[in-house]
């Protein structure tokens, strides 16, 4: 079975390695990501004001178009996922707003599409045991810290992704690849998000705390589900080095990059050149490349 796929702007520009690795891995797992035709930006934030319906139009349009093509829509970017999933939840439950938006957009979408994150596709549709069987190069007990961030999990009532306080889905995924998930207290704490633009020192501090906490628990690599988290955790490490002399760098990978390694994809196709902290030495040491 193939899945409708919403890449989002970031995966088309800054995070091509995220997009490409996911597409390649899918083929190896026996399905294809079919890109949604004529997709637009999701809006990038779910509006905080309850009457700001304009901000809901882009995700509503995406959902309506996807419904014409299929029953399940998947995304990789945690922020796109958050915006689209919450809009879908709202359109399902708030009849008044649904009517208003549909009238304005001249469409008739009822909120009946299933929105799944790529990790959810892997768990619910493919199954982690299947992935385990298909893994070519088990990750040799690589100590990997699953960093959820906040966008996948909160608000829990709308996202319904996993337990908001003690999620385990990401750990199960890493285990299926043969990695050893590292539990660390900052795995669901915020990465600083957009603060990296306005107050970069705030985001740097967040990244410092997250990364040192993961390393303290024995992590060799931090694995992320979100382009912005990855930017803050990976690209910011040069700033952390300036602020904290004791800091040691650690590679930060998209979960699809690690999936690619385990599925035996050519390391040259995994976009490691886009990573600020080079993961190749670690992967070599583990005998994975």
């Amino acid at each position, binding site marked *: 079975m193939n899945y409708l796929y919403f890449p989002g702007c970031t995966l088309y520009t800054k995070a091509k390695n995220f997009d490409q690795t996911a597409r390649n891995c899918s083929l190896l797992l026996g399905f294809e990501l079919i890109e949604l035709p004529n997709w637009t930006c999701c809006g990038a934030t779910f509006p905080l004001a309850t009457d700001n319906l304009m901000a809901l139009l882009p995700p509503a349009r995406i959902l309506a178009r996807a419904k014409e093509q299929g029953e399940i829509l998947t995304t990789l970017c945690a922020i796109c996922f958050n915006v689209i999933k919450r809009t879908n939840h709202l359109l399902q439950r708030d009849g008044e707003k649904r009517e208003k938006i549909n009238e304005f957009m001249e469409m008739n979408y009822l909120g009946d599409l299933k929105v799944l994150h790529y990790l959810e596709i892997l768990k619910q549709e493919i199954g982690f045991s299947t992935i385990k069987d298909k893994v070519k190069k088990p990750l040799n007990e690589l100590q990997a810290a699953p960093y959820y961030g906040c966008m996948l999990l909160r608000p829990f009532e709308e996202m319904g992704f996993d*337990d*908001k*306080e*003690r999620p385990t889905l990401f750990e199960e995924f890493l285990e299926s690849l043969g990695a050893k998930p590292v539990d*660390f*207290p900052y795995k669901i704490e915020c990465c600083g998000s957009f603060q990296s633009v306005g107050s970069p020192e705030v985001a740097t501090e967040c990244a410092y705390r997250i990364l040192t*906490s993961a390393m*303290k*628990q024995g992590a060799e690599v931090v694995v992320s589900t979100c382009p912005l988290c990855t930017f803050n955790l990976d690209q910011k490490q040069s700033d952390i080095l300036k602020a904290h002399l004791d800091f040691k760098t650690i590679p930060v990978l998209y979960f699809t990059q690690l999936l690619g390694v385990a599925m035996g994809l050519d390391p040259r196709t995994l976009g490691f050149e886009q990573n600020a902290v080079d993961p190749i030495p670690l992967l070599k040491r583990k005998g994975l490349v």
Partner: protein
Amino acid sequence: MRRLGVFICHCGVNIAGTVDVKKVAEEIGKIEDVCHSIDYIYMCSEPGQQLIREAIQEKQLEGVVVACCSPSMHENTFRKAVKTAGMNPYLCEIANIREQCSWVHQKEKEEATRKAMEIIQATLEKVRRNEELEPLAMSINRNVLVIGGGIAGMTASLDLAQGGYEVFLVEKGPALGGHMAQLSKTFPDLSPAFPNLLAKALEIVSHPKIELFCCSELEEVKGYVGNFEIIIHKKATYVDWTRCNGCARCIEVCPVEYPSSFDRELGMRKAVDFLYPNCVPKRVKVTPTQCRYFQDRSCRKCEEVCPEKAIQFDQKDERIHRKVGAIVIATGFDLFPKERLGEYGYGEIPDVIDGLAFERMLSPDGPTRGKILRPSDGRVPKEMVFIQCVASRDPDRYMPYCSRICCMYTAKQAKMYKEQVPDGQPYVFYMDIRSDGKGYEEFLQKTIEENGVLYLRGRVSRVFQEDGKVKVWGVDTLTGKGIEIGADLVVLATAIIPSEGVKELAAKLRATVDKHGFLTEAHIKLYPVESSTKGIYLAGCGQSPKDITDTVSQASATAGKIQALLSTDKLFQDPLIAYVDETVCSGCGICVEICPYEAREMDYRRGISIVHVALCQGCGACIASCPNFACELRNSSSVQTLRMVDTFI
């Protein structure tokens, strides 16, 4: 045509301020069969009642309508008043023109006056056809069943037994004491919990009027107030308790050890063991799920060593029948389960424990002999964090209510910790402090000021293990700062919830529970120890979270109420119940299905459905469901009801 009297109450200004009572009295007085219509400032007062009595005698009234407040307030008052004037009390009815008229129409005076007249006219329609009735008298059994052998059930049992009533005390576990047996000291006097409990427990087992059933549950109950028939399911202990002398030799030789739930998994127990050392009755019980004999017959060491030959691997469960007049539900509480708490590392981090586990640690006969030691490595904790309101007062995720005892027991525990570890530092995260009992606030202030317990107003966001410590992230909302504490031991004051199985038990007894599973009382203010079903009484935390002082008070109140109930010769019941027109009933049985009180039954010999007068509560469900109009409610017949409706439309 009956001669009727109408008495209209002003209720001060409550009614008269809105309803034109003079006009109402005048207009109602014009009705043909109304021989007497007056208004008065307070009808319920002694002179007001005297007006009614005089009118009945002077004008030979044959029916009375009092237009006043709700019948649940003064129906009884006025029915008694007319009775002393020689009238059958069921010929007196209340027209509620306060709650259902003046209070809700304060701004529409004319409309309210019109409505008051209509309510009175409708009530007159009812009185015109009321029958003269007599209360139903029933015989009464003077024994009492008490369910639950904690401090609530023990107190109620002793009070009743000392009053001369026979008590059957049914306890689910193998010994008395409930949760109080797990406690170290009690607040605010810091007196040791166990010796106080032990004195009561010993009194119970030696009391000639109390029959104690341990390892037992109520299996079945039939009947009604004054006449319940019960079946007690006594589970096998695999030990003949008439022979066992509590010598404990079997425990010494038993090879199976497993975590003790009494010690909150901090200590171990054997497959044959006491519930706790010094338990009452001091008798051992074999736990078949752990015992090797029950798994593969491989061990009979306890049987071999027992000098009294008390071990009986083939013991069977028993069913015991008894008759009682009243039942007390004193089923107590549990703490909010680990499995349902995603936060605070509860259930994952060994050094995060709940308040009851810490009590076991503080108890001299507990798993650490009263020493405060970290479960993970047995070291003395130098920094301790107490978190209050865990799963309490959290309407979005857990329990919305306050568990009431946590503020005080946390203060007590922090104090006891500080006394044992003077160089240690206890921190308490709290939302508000609730110390409303006698001496509680003084106790708390002393803890804060003299013992150096640091109180931080705010919530905890995360608890995790790092560097051999339990890191606690929280916020102090008074300074607005985030706080990180590297604690050695964390104690959670988890929410109190009703103990397991209460819902099923309540259903058996036709008692009701609220949405959290706490037993509901008949009236929160006026009848706080009675359940909504007659003859079923409540005591302790099964009704709501409460401390030992309140539990004991409530248990004694329950015992007092039951003594009042059982001290009469006959029980009298309101006769306003269903009856069947035998010539009309077709015996279809729909009413039997529909009755919520099991008061309807088929009489197959006569082919009709009958009413058990003692069980019927007069709810009217059978009347509404009868396809042939064969059932009627005394003094609320279909004709009466339809006439009343006609008045309004």
